[in-house]
């Protein structure tokens, strides 16, 4: 595996807490006043030029939110968040919905270039005729070598650009920012928004419903196999802002879509809040594959700074024989609170959850999934690999339940934890609830450190200890890496190596 060697090389070059995406960019921004109130929500809604039903929806969520309390059941500790000390809206100036790349602030384009996100390249491939050889070479050097990926780039509170729109439209696929969808496709948004994660769902989802500023919208019509990978890249840049994005993906009968999500933020001493909601709807025979590489700034070696990541992700297998698959690689954020779930409503539907959660330094991860079996002959599979190092706490928390009518529900769960160092903790909290005698649930979990035997075996073949550990860790997470689209798999592998730097040896 050449990627392993690559991981080690990278790890060698980098100091312990160096976060390679930690740069900041000075960009003129348009901000709402600090704090949260009905006025702020009206402000956001007006900025987005939203119809009145949307504003009402937000306000209702806000009023609901005021009655809710922050949940405390997760194994994460953080000082109380002052929700009035956050900017809820920050947008780069000069972006009243750019129509082409040339309208986008070049500073922002530079940011994405630095991050390796190929906004420009996509334009080239999309058919804007440019045959300059040097530019094509630049393209091939990019992270996303293998294929075409349509990107929706979200910068703080707004989507700055979405690539490949034209080609996607030819196939009937709608891929745009959610703000645009609210304006252009209100009937679809009205029908599906909040139908998987209702505004009253939980504290953070309710907050998101009130103040969400942007995110992606994907609609794949009946029988269409989305011709390319779709991707959203989230970047938090502005200080003291919270990012609240909302993603809605709908796959109609027989449709297929694969969607990738990536995220980074600058390195700062203050904590920043990120509370997103993702809703997936799969109708009969549809399939949605959702992959995330989460690499928000995790804080420094002393645990200062970092992103608080409170995310609600849920997929609804509404149709028969539908399938939703979540794959996540979680390496960033000071705090992760995230449980991508599947509601297996349609008969013969299936849900999958593959996760790698790596925590180092003072990171706290409380993540897992829910598989709710409602329809007949539904199946689900959970593979979770947690790696804890440094002073971090890594918790898997998951629920599998079969309701009365869910005959022949089938679940397999495997969650393994690996501990590196004696100051970290790994925890497993699975909930299994069976209310149907034909349900078949299997759950297994193990926790251990890298065994001396494994290490010895590798090292006696002349491989130094650090490389040996990297090899073993990569082997440990292989089951999940295999589920990622190729472009992400390589990146994820590198990321894991970097995240663990300083913890081995």
């Amino acid at each position, binding site marked *: 595996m050449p990627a392993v060697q690559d991981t080690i090389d990278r790890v060698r070059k980098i100091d312990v807490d160096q976060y390679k995406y930690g740069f900041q960019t000075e960009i003129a921004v348009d901000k709402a006043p600090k704090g949260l109130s009905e006025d702020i929500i009206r402000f956001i809604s007006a900025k987005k030029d939203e119809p009145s039903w949307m504003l009402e929806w937000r306000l209702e969520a806000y009023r609901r939110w005021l009655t809710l309390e922050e949940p405390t059941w997760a194994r994460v500790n953080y000082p109380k968040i002052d929700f009035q000390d956050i900017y809820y809206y920050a947008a780069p100036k000069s972006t009243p919905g750019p129509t082409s790349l040339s309208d986008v602030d070049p500073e922002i384009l530079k940011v994405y270039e630095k991050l390796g996100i190929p906004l420009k390249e996509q334009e080239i491939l999309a058919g804007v005729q440019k045959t300059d050889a040097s530019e094509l070479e630049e393209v091939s050097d990019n992270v996303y070598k293998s294929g075409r990926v349509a990107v929706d780039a979200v910068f703080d509170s707004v989507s700055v650009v979405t690539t490949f729109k034209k080609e996607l439209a030819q196939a009937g696929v709608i891929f745009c920012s959610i703000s645009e969808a609210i304006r252009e496709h209100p009937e679809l948004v009205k029908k599906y928004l909040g139908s998987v994660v209702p505004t009253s769902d939980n504290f953070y989802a309710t907050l998101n419903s009130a103040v969400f500023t942007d995110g992606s919208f994907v609609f794949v019509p009946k029988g269409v196999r989305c011709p390319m990978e779709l991707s959203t890249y989230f970047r938090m840049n502005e200080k003291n802002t919270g990012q609240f994005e909302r993603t809605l993906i709908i796959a109609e009968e027989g449709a297929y879509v694969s969607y990738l999500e990536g995220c980074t933020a600058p390195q700062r001493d203050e904590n920043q809040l990120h509370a997103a909601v993702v809703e997936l709807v799969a109708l009969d025979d549809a399939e949605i594959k959702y992959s995330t590489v989460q690499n928000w700034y995790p804080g420094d070696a002393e645990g200062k700074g970092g992103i608080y990541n409170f995310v609600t992700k849920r997929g609804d297998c509404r149709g028969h024989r539908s399938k939703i698959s979540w794959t996540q690689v979680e390496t960033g954020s000071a705090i992760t609170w995230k449980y991508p779930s599947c509601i297996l409503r349609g008969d013969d539907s299936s849900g999958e959850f593959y996760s790698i959660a790596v925590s180092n330094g003072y990171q706290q991860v409380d993540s897992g999934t829910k598989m709710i079996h409602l329809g007949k002959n539904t199946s689900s599979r959970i593979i979770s690999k947690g790696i804890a190092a440094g002073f971090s706490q890594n918790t898997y928390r998951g629920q599998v339940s079969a309701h009365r009518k869910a005959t022949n529900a089938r679940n397999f769960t495997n969650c393994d934890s690996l501990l590196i160092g004696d100051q970290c903790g790994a925890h497993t909290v699975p909930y299994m609830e*069976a209310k149907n005698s034909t349900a078949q649930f299997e759950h297994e979990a193990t926790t251990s450190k890298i065994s001396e035997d494994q290490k010895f075996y590798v090292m006696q073949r002349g491989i130094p200890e650090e490389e040996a550990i990297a090899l073993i860790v990569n082997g440990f997470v292989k089951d999940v890496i295999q589920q990622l689209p190729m472009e992400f798999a390589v990146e994820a592998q590198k990321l894991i190596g970097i995240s663990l730097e300083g913890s081995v040896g």
Partner: protein
Amino acid sequence: MNMHTQPQRTPAETALIDAFGERLSLLPGDGAVMLKRDDAIEAVKHGLPTRRIESWHYTDLRRLLSAVPDFDPAAAAQAIAPIVEGSTVLILLNGVSSAKAPVVDGVSVQRLSEKLTDGSIAPGLDPYGSDDAIGALNTAFVADGYFVDIADGIELEKPIELQNLQAGGQTHVRLPVRVGAGAKAVIVERQAGEGAALTSSVSQLVLGEGAEVTWLIVQEQPDTATHLAQFKAHIGKDAKLTLFVMNAGGRLVRQEVMVKTTGEGADFKLRGINLLAGDTHTDVTMVLDHAVPHTTSTEVIRNVVTGKARGVFQGRINVHQYAQKTNAKMACNTLLLSDDGEFSTKPELEIFADDVVCGHGATVTEIDHDHLFYLMARGVDEKSARGLLVKAFVAEVIEELDDEAIVEALEARLDEWFVTHG
């Protein structure tokens, strides 16, 4: 926003608080004990735990404990034969110990009422935390029990059977047992009776260095009774504890098992079978603390769910930061035989040490069709084949116990359950 206001008391909560007021003058205890009782009833006044309390997630005691029977001084429970012939029997009838305790060499037995009166038991009465509803309820009301002390080096040939028998009303007993260094014993805890009682029972076991104990909890309350029980143990250096729990009765049952390894080389085994039938609710909750290095544990729980029964198993293994070289394994297997039954399980691992091997497995399923086919292809009718398979599923756990007399005795209890609930 009225989430912090005190919700209205349920009839059961009111009944418990009222009963405390009425019983107070009758409860034995010196000043220290009475103070602990006062603290404990305060906890009850704050309300019984609901599903919002994580450790009670699947057993919403506030909702499930719909009524509390009054104390019944006239209740007359009947003694029963011990499960192993020739056992030394210590009997509690309606929560009252007997003045005539049998004499065994090396074993000292005291009535708990005396230890409450002189206050010597006071330090052990504290509940372990704010969610310890059973501990609080018991501390508030405990009136009797037995204190058993097995001297160092004593190896008992016959089991000691502690019988807690009820005939309605309320009983609250406590069974502290100390087993000295190098001592060996088999202790049977019987929980049974005939009435619609509310019982709380707390067993506290301390194992000295190198002691070996097999403790069997055989719970066969009638399906009208509410049984809230706790088993707490500290396992010393190189000591071995095998705990066997059999739940085969009760309307609302919560059996908590709180075990801590306190000396290196300690070993804990938990084997449990839960036979659930009717419209009942049974919860087994275990918290196991590996607090020192080099300790081992294995837990195997088998559940059979029929009728409208609801079963719960929560098992949490905590491995403390200094408890390196811990080896802990837990398995919970459930046969869900009816569409009206349900089973919820939460096997947790909380691990703060890195050089450990810990694992858990949990399954919920129905009878394997291949197994059934195998038997039926040999001419066994379906009902008998199912019976055989279900019995084999739980008997496997009993057979592990090695001690022939005990295995036979438990299989006899198992047979009896299958005859009644076939």
